[in-house]
């Protein structure tokens, strides 16, 4: 029995774009639950509907049918202003191409969403510096995005997505533009945010190595969830193989 509702729940969500011959069924009857502290990866080929799933879970789009609940609260009955507040306060987004504002420093990029949500500039800056510090970017706070490496830019984007009281991080191919070592660092940070800050992350990727950082991996194909991984007994089993004879 659950004591709390899951942080994110999609109930029989479908999404259709266009009409008639141009109709495209991006999602069919998708149900998904992600708990607090859980990192879920969604794997599937291009065009399978995984990014649509993310935008709907992130309240950026409405489903054609079905329900989305965040913290047990249905979005269908939520006024637009409340939905916008939920997006600002609860959900952070990480994109493949970082989406940092080029005219702002790293610290300003991170503090901006807090200021937009009404926090004083001074408090927002303190929170931003703390977030950057936690990701090893204390010496990069005053740098502009074009003065940062790809890996550093994505860490700034993660700081922006996790700063404040956010509970949910949605990441769309967050390591797609990075090499494997920097990609791993990004996934390590996201997983750590889930475990240490009781956040929930849904990460869309086609890369099995990056998905393997998740607690659970959901496979999507042609807009339908087809399968998911079963939690392993324990990684130590891999290190107790019989010696070679």
């Amino acid at each position, binding site marked *: 029995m659950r004591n709390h509702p899951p942080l994110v729940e999609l109930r029989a969500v479908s999404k259709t774009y266009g009409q008639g011959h141009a109709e495209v*069924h991006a999602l069919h009857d998708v149900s998904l639950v992600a708990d607090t502290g859980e990192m879920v990866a969604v794997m599937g080929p291009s065009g399978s509907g995984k990014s649509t799933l993310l935008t709907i879970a992130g309240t950026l789009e409405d489903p054609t049918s079905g329900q989305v609940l965040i913290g047990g609260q249905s979005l269908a009955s939520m006024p637009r202003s409340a939905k916008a507040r939920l997006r600002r306060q609860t959900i952070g987004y990480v994109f493949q191409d970082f989406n940092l504002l080029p005219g702002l420093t790293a610290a300003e990029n991170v503090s901006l969403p807090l200021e937009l949500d009404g926090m004083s500039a001074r408090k927002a800056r303190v929170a931003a510096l703390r977030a950057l510090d936690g990701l090893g970017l204390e010496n990069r706070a005053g740098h502009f995005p074009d003065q940062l490496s790809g890996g550093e830019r994505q860490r700034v984007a993660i700081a922006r997505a996790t700063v404040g009281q956010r509970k949910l991080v949605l990441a769309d191919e967050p390591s797609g533009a990075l090499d494997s070592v920097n990609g791993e660092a990004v996934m390590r940070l996201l997983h750590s945010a889930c475990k240490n800050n009781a956040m929930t992350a849904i990460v869309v990727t086609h890369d*099995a190595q990056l998905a393997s950082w998740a607690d659970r991996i959901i496979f999507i194909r*042609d807009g339908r969830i*087809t399968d998911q991984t079963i939690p392993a007994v324990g990684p130590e089993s*891999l*290190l107790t193989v019989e010696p070679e004879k």
Partner: protein
Amino acid sequence: MSVRHAMLALLSEGSSYGLHLREEFEARTGDVWPLNVGQVYTTLQRLERDGLVASEGDEDGPGAQKMFRITQDGARELDTWLRTPPDLSSPPRDELVMKVLIALRVPGASVSEVIQAHRRYLVELMQQWTRIKEDADPADLSLGLAVDAELFRLDAVVRWLDAADARIKRVTADAAPADTPAAATTPAPPHTSVIESLPRMPLTTNRKVRTRR
């Protein structure tokens, strides 16, 4: 993997006893490839027979141990081995590839389901390796590199499954009748008809193949 050359590599750092070599080998490979003592001593005896290592001391008597050192020939052999790429020119007889190829031919078999069953298993294994990496000391390079090697190996197989899935789906869509435009976007039906429409693939080959490990 060549235990023989791993022993030479360890001895290139200095003389050592067999038991110590075994401990060092396991530590250097992040405990991913355990060895038994018998294998270590058999390997050392063969290296000594071939003049690649030499020993001092006597194994006779309680508690006595032989000290092994690398010879000049052994050092040359190690250097040559390090620079020689392993033979990857012939494809191994891969059971997974065979299963997918066979699934294409079995009436009623869903190839996409077969592929997904293998994909899920591989990704679950990758999750276990990643947990090991996550828990490991970042300074433990041996473990990090050994786990990376395993992750990249498994990832390559997953990529092959993804490519196979996409290729089969494309051929299926091309083979679908023109009056079923949704065929490309709806889940593939049981693949009996699909298999019949696919080119007949040879399941055996005359090419000489090596057995993996």
